[in-house]
């Protein structure tokens, strides 16, 4: 025991712990600032990202191969199902094209240049996931050079998955919507029911046991049913309007019985992500 806790060693241990704690406190405190991370850290992350690309490539390749095999096994059923959808899709596509063209024209006439729905999509590969049980973070392969900024929303092919929390030059970190950290700022979303009326709210949490997104403190009397579509509302400015979030799973009273809580089935699968899209405004 003498060897472990001699005076000098004890002092060194305490100093190291204090330095470690100080570094952590500072980085937690500055995490949400616009200027974070500092240039040196960005450079370090860019180098790490470049090396990681080399290692992530074969691993992701293997994942792609195994996904292809399982896709192949389901091909027949999927083909049957898709055939039915294709006919309806052509109709919907033409409709959407006409509406978009008309929308553009009308907007020009109103001199309305920046609408809430306009954004460009930047596609990025997922390099890695933080190996920690306390953070649901991904590192993606595009950064500031591709126009990505902090707090931009990130989607998979099927729907919203999270937001950008740290931007380096050539890669950036994404915090998933399933993250329960208290500092995670939440998305403004809206539910549209069959009659066309909307209910606004924000994502207040994520229920890990059922994999549902929660939208709490809803006091509106508008009737919401299971299966109604949920999209981002564009309020607050950072997130464009109309990104698909999911469908309503159920509506229940909250714990105090004053407001209701809407539970939403996310459209995206948060555990199988290889390619994501960042909505750049």
């Amino acid at each position, binding site marked *: 025991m003498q*060897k*472990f806790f001699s005076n000098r060693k004890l002092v060194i241990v305490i100093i*190291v*712990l204090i*330095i*470690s*704690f*100080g*570094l*952590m*406190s*500072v*980085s*937690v405190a500055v*995490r949400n600032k616009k200027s974070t*991370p500092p240039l040196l*850290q960005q450079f*370090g*992350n860019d180098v*790490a*990202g470049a*090396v*990681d690309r080399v*290692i*992530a490539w074969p*691993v*992701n390749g*293997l*994942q792609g191969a195994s996904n292809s095999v399982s896709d192949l096994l389901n091909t027949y059923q999927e083909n049957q199902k898709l055939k039915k959808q294709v006919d309806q899709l052509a109709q919907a596509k033409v409709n959407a094209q006409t509406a978009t063209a008309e929308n553009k024209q009308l907007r020009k006439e109103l001199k309305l240049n920046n609408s809430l729905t306009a954004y460009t999509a930047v596609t990025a590969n*997922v*390099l*890695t*996931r*933080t*190996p*920690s*049980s*306390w*953070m*649901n*973070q*991904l*590192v993606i392969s595009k950064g500031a050079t591709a126009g990505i900024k902090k707090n931009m929303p990130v989607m998979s092919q099927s729907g919203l998955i999270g937001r950008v*929390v*740290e931007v380096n030059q050539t890669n950036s*970190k994404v915090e998933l919507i399933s993250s*329960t*950290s*208290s500092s995670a700022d939440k998305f403004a979303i809206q539910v549209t029911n069959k009659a066309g009326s909307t209910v606004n709210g924000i994502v207040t949490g994520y229920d*890990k*046991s059922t*994999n549902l997104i929660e939208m709490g403190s809803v006091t509106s009397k508008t009737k919401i049913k299971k299966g109604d579509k949920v999209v981002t509302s564009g309020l607050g400015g950072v997130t464009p309007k109309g990104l698909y979030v999911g469908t309503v799973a159920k509506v229940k009273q909250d714990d105090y019985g004053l407001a209701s809580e809407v539970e939403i089935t996310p459209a995206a699968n*948060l*555990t*199988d*992500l290889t390619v994501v899209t960042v909505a750049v405004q």
Partner: protein
Amino acid sequence: MRVSRLRIIFPVGLFLALFLDGSLSNVFAAHLFKYPYSSVLHLVLLWIIFAVFLDDRNDLSIGIWSAFAGLVFDWYYTGILGVYMVALPLVVYLSRQIKPWLDLNFLTMLMVYIINLTIVEAFVYIWYLIGKVMTSNLADFAVYTLGPTIAVNLALFVILYYPVRQLYLKVS
């Protein structure tokens, strides 16, 4: 000549393990982070423990390399500095302290690895808790994080023990 080869192999393997941790976590996310369990891969720690106990001459600067790997982990994966950067060298130091007392074989190394996994996970848990990075209670941590983490990493240890030992015997 023979020494210098290990001096190159060790850091290369260390960073390979570091990035494989993240890549494999992403690929197997559906299995590793299945609610309520979350098992964290610790290939870096495994590689460090192998190096401490299998390198007989103590001529690798494992402490410094592990601090550097911890720094890259903090910057690249979590964005919160000073946690793994201290946890990994701490484990190296403690392992070096108990190494002379141990009769080295497969089972004692397995035990030491379990203890070190617990130290690192507990250190990170306590630090993140104090720093308000996350909120979780001790029982949940022990049952849903520490348990599965030890299980997964022990399996990896058993698989990788003999190949890595062969590597060290051959090279050094």
